[in-house]
């Protein structure tokens, strides 16, 4: 104390040291998964892929944090980043979102999307499929028939999340699903390596690294951390070129491989909630496939058959949308009125309708290929030309222009 009395300015060392300690400690906690490299026996990429295929997890519960930093422009009508605390299932496009996951075999699954003061749940318990939204105080119930995905189709890989066909909005968001999507893209165009080992949610994991061989892609790397003992993906990161932080990351922040209590999958709509009983005959797998096919062919009819330019990771899709331009510019078109989806969720909207309102807000570009509007993000670009052509790809805009002029 005496030194503090003689030189009072030295007192400020104490709060400064506390600040440094807290910030340093906080940063250490935040970055520890990346720093720690627990020693694991080396494992080849092929071995890891087999491990993933053979993984059999009977139950798990955990917290998944999904964050997107696509660098999309702020546009009206998309709702991107508008409400970061929103528990809406379709708001996963931007920002950081937290999901809680309970899984006990393909017939018991619960996913909860956490909002700041709300929650959206999807619960599958046997043949019952419930969705719950605390903001609206609504629940929907659907009785699944036995040919639903998750009962027959997924029997070979029990670790898959069931209900993926029912809720496309969240199925792509769990590490397992995101990894499946990335692995499906593996082709001769991709270099698959393993890179050391990582620690995710306090567990040791191998990292599978997918690097595009083709030049020109905006995707620099896809890294998948695979649990060393349970062999399920714990983290998926998609890096854009020239970016030190992942553009998309889906990772467990906590995971427990004990089978969750059966009570966790029981759902009874609370009194006062609006419960919608959905027709169990209509959304059978065959019907929905038919529906989807009809919707796809309708969309394809409007947009024209896509032309594929390039290959692998630098593929560019060029579509002729001149006939469906009514939908694109927001004018009422045939696509809107005939939306077959039972619940009017924004994901069920044709993409053109969502694009229409924001088209004019996009920067204008022009070149020898013509002129149009450019949507640019860290992972993909899209050009909508004034004569109704759309070019999309995980590439820089230059490659889109080249594809358009072909």
């Amino acid at each position, binding site marked *: 104390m005496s030194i503090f009395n003689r030189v009072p300015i030295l007192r400020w060392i104490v709060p400064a040291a506390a600040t440094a300690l807290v910030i340093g400690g906080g940063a250490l906690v935040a970055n520890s998964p990346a720093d720690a490299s627990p020693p694991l026996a080396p494992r080849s990429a092929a071995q890891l892929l087999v491990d993933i295929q053979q993984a059999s997890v009977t139950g798990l519960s955990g917290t998944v944090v999904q964050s997107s930093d696509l660098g999309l422009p702020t546009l009206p009508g998309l709702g991107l980043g508008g409400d970061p605390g929103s528990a809406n299932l379709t708001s996963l496009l931007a920002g950081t979102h937290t999901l809680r996951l309970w899984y006990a075999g393909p017939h018991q699954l619960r996913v909860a999307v956490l909002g700041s003061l709300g929650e959206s749940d999807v619960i599958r318990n046997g043949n019952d499929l419930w969705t719950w939204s*605390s903001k609206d105080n*609504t629940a929907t119930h659907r009785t699944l028939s036995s040919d639903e995905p998750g009962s027959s189709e997924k029997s070979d890989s029990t670790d898959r999340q069931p209900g993926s066909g029912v809720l496309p909005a969240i199925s792509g968001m769990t590490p397992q699903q995101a990894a499946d999507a990335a692995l499906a893209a593996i082709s001769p165009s991709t270099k698959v390596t393993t890179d050391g080992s990582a620690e995710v949610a306090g567990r040791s994991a191998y990292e599978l690294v997918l690097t595009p061989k083709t030049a020109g892609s905006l995707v620099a790397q896809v890294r998948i951390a695979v649990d060393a003992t349970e062999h399920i993906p714990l983290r998926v990161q998609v890096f854009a070129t020239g970016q030190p932080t992942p553009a998309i990351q889906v990772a467990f922040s906590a995971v427990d491989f004990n089978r969750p209590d059966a009570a966790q999958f029981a759902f009874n709509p609370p009194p006062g909630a609006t419960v919608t009983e959905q027709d169990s005959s209509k959304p059978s797998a065959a019907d929905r496939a038919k529906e989807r096919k009809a919707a796809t062919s309708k969309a394809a009819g409007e947009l024209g058959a896509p032309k594929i330019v390039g290959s692998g990771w630098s593929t560019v899709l060029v579509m002729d949308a001149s006939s469906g331009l009514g939908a694109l510019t927001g004018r009422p078109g045939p696509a809107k009125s005939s939306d077959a989806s039972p619940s009017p969720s924004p994901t069920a909207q044709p993409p053109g309708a969502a694009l229409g309102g924001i088209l004019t807000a996009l920067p204008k570009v022009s070149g020898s290929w013509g002129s149009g509007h450019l949507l640019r993000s860290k992972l993909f670009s899209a050009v909508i030309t004034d004569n109704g052509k759309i070019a999309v790809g995980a590439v820089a805009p230059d490659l889109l222009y080249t594809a358009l002029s072909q």
Partner: protein
Amino acid sequence: MSTVELPAGGAAPIGLRRPRPVSSRFLRSELRLIFGRRRNIAGLAVLALVPIIIAVAVKVSAPRPGDGPDFFASITGNGLFVPLAALTVEITLFLPLAIAVIAGDSIAGEANLGTLRYLLTVPVNRTRLLAVKYAAITIFAVAATMLITVVGLVIGVALFHGGSMTLLSGNQIGFGGGLLRVLGATVYLAVQLAALGAIGLFLSSLTEQPIAAMAGLVVMTVVMYILDSIPQLGWLGPWLLTHRFTAFGDLLRSPVAWDTLRQGVICAASYALIFWLASWARFAGKDITS
């Protein structure tokens, strides 16, 4: 104001007998000051009025589901949501404002009235003075949040029925469990406000104008809210005190999601520690001129 503090030092009539360092007399006199001032009582009355207004308004016109701010639609189902709705409404401005008034007044108010030097000429250690002042702010934070909760519970259960509570996850728990979670949310918010109070204590040690310290804390709170809402500054969010104010909602999940709550408490404790030490560094070396 100065007369009540005197007993703290008055207990040393004989040379060897010094006041016990843990004597609560100073703290008790401080609390008497805070809860005895008419403006503070009026402020607490305003805080307590909010749950009453909410409950009556909802009773008169039941909002449709999905309408209104958080928890409002749930009130008709269970009176336990009245305190939650009131806390959600008040945590944005009213509660930080109340803490700003108390914390901003703590040092600067005494300095402004000229009572600070009398307080210090009584053998009150400056560190102890800061500790007592901060303890009183913390107790006020607990009292203010508890007041809202208790008033909300009473009016909520009186106007709407109690019974089972529907959690955010859609599950139902009994009234006792629901009550426990509401009290947990109250304590969590009190901890957050106490951290805000530490910032206020520091600002109060910087100036002799209590209004400046009060305004400073309100401005800091609003600035933190603004910074937290800018998407481009998303990396900054977890470091801001206000970022996890609404995490008390995690107590209403099944099972309780502790992660954010734990981070919120750690964040609040860090803020409290740093700003208390900063006010110590400032105040212990400060010349008391008034």
